[in-house]
């Protein structure tokens, strides 16, 4: 049922795109490869789960809470770890190493608190119905995921391209020094970007938790690795490229599972990554912007 | 006498931008030549093309008749071309001595067994490297600072270190990119003397510079680049009086340059 698979692929691709967007935003604006994004993604899912279990929150509220909580974590990471490193003008690899440590610490902390076993969202919260669209049976869940993702991505694109704020962010992405000289509140925007990017990651976590009906402390890891593949495929720092590459990966994965076999599904991302690195390191979809320090 | 370095109709396009158009020039062995031009004319790009950091879009670059185009930077250096940089690129965390010894890399002939077991070949080569490095540092009046960290040097001293390091590669052609930028006049006069000495030892020098007194005082032959094109070529007197050159410089807001005919500086 090709059409079925296509919808499947679309919703998975949307989640990948959403995750990659957060990742790319941080890289583009802050100039840091934030490898704790996987952990933040996972934290969002667990935050939503806790909200539903403990506070009996409805799904939409849980998602909002996930956004806020993950965003807060991302903000803290920026203030406590990334900012001092920026002040010190540390070479690029250093902040990345720090975020590796943070990611690991967060993963293990959550594992200690919640246990390593798979958890699920309670089934009452999951929309169960499906609709018939053009003869294809689509679950409301998938539709919801696609809708939420598209809304978020559209808002992001519009903000970046049509607003003053977006212009400021793009200026910072080109050159933070020049942006500062232009009077842009670079530090404030770093905070905002960290918050939003982490928040997007958190929402992506909830969506994947719903899609695959499984939450576990290390769920961010495969996501992180795929996120890496996506942003290299899409060209690092390129927002549009990240979205396209995320969608592309979703399709590639689902189709390969359907026609090749499910055990190598995670390897699809890496296989693509290596092929691309061999042939076109600048990525399939984007144009790499050189950042002037 | 055959040209040591020859650029023939070299162009470099980047996107729609024509950085260099149809540049031809030649440098004779044993001479000091100069490349001047207003800021943004494309001078450092010429050096980047010669040293293989960028490929020319069209045209050929030959060293003693052999084409350099398509070869990797380290291969070009090994053929006998060395350079210094407009924005200084010394190895900051190494001492001066170590910086210069790095330049001798390709001249140290020993393999892994030699270095592991400290065989005679290794020991001799390392000693030769240290001695030669001190010698080169002394040419640049830096030998008393041999064990200092490069990062601690003044601007002018770092530029001299770069020259010593470039000389360590045993080049035939030495490319100097703005060797006196940021130096005071005493240092500049010193360096002029040192460069004449270097030429006296058999090296060929090709330099980019903005300081006219320096260029006119040293170079036997000068090429002038403006907007990516060669607009004049010849000896210092000729260039000084060339109307196109004067216009190129006076037409732009250049702070360091004054090329006024007939006025001695």
């Amino acid at each position, binding site marked *: 049922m090709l059409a079925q698979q296509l919808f499947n692929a679309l919703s998975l691709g949307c989640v990948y795109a959403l995750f990659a967007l957060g990742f790319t935003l941080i890289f583009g604006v802050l100039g840091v490869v934030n490898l704790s994004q996987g952990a933040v993604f996972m934290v969002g899912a667990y935050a939503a789960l806790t909200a539903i279990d403990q506070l009996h929150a409805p799904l939409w509220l849980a998602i909002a809470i996930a956004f806020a909580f993950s965003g807060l974590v991302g903000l803290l990471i920026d203030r406590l770890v990334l900012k001092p490193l920026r002040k010190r003008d540390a070479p690029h690899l250093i902040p990345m190493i*720090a975020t590796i440590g943070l990611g690991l610490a967060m993963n293990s902390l959550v594992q200690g608190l919640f246990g390593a076993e798979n958890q699920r969202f309670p089934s009452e919260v999951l929309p169960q119905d499906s609709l018939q669209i053009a003869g294809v049976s689509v679950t409301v869940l998938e539709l919801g995921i696609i809708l939420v993702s598209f809304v978020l991505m559209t808002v992001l694109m519009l903000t970046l391209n049509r607003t003053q704020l977006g212009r400021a962010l793009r200026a910072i992405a080109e050159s933070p020094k020049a942006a500062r000289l232009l009077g842009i509140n670079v530090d404030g925007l770093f905070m905002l970007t960290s918050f939003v990017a982490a928040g997007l990651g958190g929402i992506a976590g909830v969506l994947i938790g719903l899609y695959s009906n499984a939450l576990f402390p290390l769920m961010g890891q495969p996501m992180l690795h795929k996120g890496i593949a996506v942003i*290299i495929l899409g060209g690092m720092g390129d927002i549009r490229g990240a979205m396209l590459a995320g969608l592309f990966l979703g399709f590639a994965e689902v189709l390969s599972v359907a026609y090749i076999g499910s055990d190598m599904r995670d390897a699809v991302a890496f296989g693509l990554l290596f092929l691309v690195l061999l042939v076109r390191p600048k990525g399939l979809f984007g144009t790499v912007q050189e950042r002037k320090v | 006498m055959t040209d040591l370095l020859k650029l023939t109709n070299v162009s470099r396009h980047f996107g729609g931008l024509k950085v260099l158009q149809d540049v031809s020039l030649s440098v004779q062995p044993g001479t000091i030549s100069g490349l001047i031009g207003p800021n943004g004319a494309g001078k450092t790009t010429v050096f980047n093309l010669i040293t293989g950091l960028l490929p020319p879009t069209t045209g050929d670059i030959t060293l003693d008749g052999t084409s350099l185009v398509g070869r990797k930077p380290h291969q070009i*250096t090994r053929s006998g071309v060395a350079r210094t940089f407009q924005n200084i690129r010394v190895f900051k965390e190494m001492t001066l001595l170590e910086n210069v010894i*790095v330049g001798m890399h390709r001249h140290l002939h020993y393999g892994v067994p030699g270095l592991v077991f400290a065989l005679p070949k290794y020991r001799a080569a390392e000693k030769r490297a240290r001695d030669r490095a001190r010698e080169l540092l002394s040419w640049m009046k830096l030998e008393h600072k041999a064990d*200092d960290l490069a990062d601690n040097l003044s601007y002018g001293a770092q530029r001299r270190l770069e020259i010593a390091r470039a000389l360590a590669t045993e080049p035939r052609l030495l490319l100097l990119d703005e060797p006196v930028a940021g130096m005071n006049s005493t240092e500049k006069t010193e360096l002029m003397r040192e460069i004449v000495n270097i030429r006296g030892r058999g090296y060929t020098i090709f330099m980019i510079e903005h300081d006219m007194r320096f260029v006119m005082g040293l170079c036997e032959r000068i090429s002038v680049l403006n907007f990516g094109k060669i607009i004049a070529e010849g000896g210092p007197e000729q260039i000084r009086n060339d109307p196109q050159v004067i216009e190129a410089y006076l037409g732009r807001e250049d702070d360091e340059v004054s090329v006024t005919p007939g006025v001695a500086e």
Partner: protein
Amino acid sequence: MIDFLDNFWSVYSNLVLSLGTNALLALSIYLTLSCGMLAMANAAFMGIGAYTSSILTMNYGWPFPLAIAAGMAAPTLVAFVIGRPTLRLSGVYLAMATLAFGEVVRLCILRAENLTGGALGLNGIPQLTTWWHVLLAVVAVLFLLARLRRSKIGRAFEAIKEDETAAGLMGIDVNGHKMLAFALGAAIAGLAGVLDAHLTFFIGPQEFGFDRGVEILTMTILGGINSLFGPVIGALIITLLPELLRSFKDYRAVANGLILVLIVLFLPKGLWNPAWMRKVTGLAKRAAPSA
């Protein structure tokens, strides 16, 4: 006295030997770092070495020395193959590509169940590693790396680490040297893998994944990359830490992660930093800035 030493050894021999293999791993990452590359593939290389040698000794009865050689050769070969496309990437791209590669290796190990036992791992590896294997390995590697540092190769690494372009223009074959550092690092990691597998008689894919890679990185960064002793000291601390803080054993990974962050923030050059130590002991290497 002899009794005490005997008792100590019977209780702690594994720990001491693990210290040795961890030191080897830390040194393997140090090697690539000293050339300016952050390559996060060494845990995977360790795994390749571990599995290759274990399969050979367990299933084919190979003698240990040959298995060691094979366990070093296999990851080196892989390093050469993946090195060519990935080493031309810089900094961040390289780190991520090698991270991703590590995942691929782990997935392949899981998939090749017949050979590797899949998720259940390999059990019953002959315990062939003795203390002198480990000692010899550590001493040999330290010696080799020390000699490299004092040669044109070590200087080339440092030059590349500081400024690749300038290094290339000094006649250094940058790609060749990077490949050397990468492949040699892989060989050392493979050696550590062989020795470790034949010590603990069990290996599983989860041991060679991301967590392990981060742990190795932490050891090296903690100790500092300015001298060869740094990684060894870092390995010492990270290996002993869970033993010293028994109650933290479950949170070992959290500790590792936090240590990494704290070191990066507060002690960027690591613990064993000759410059800092000289300053503290009053012997300053840096002369005053000169005119």
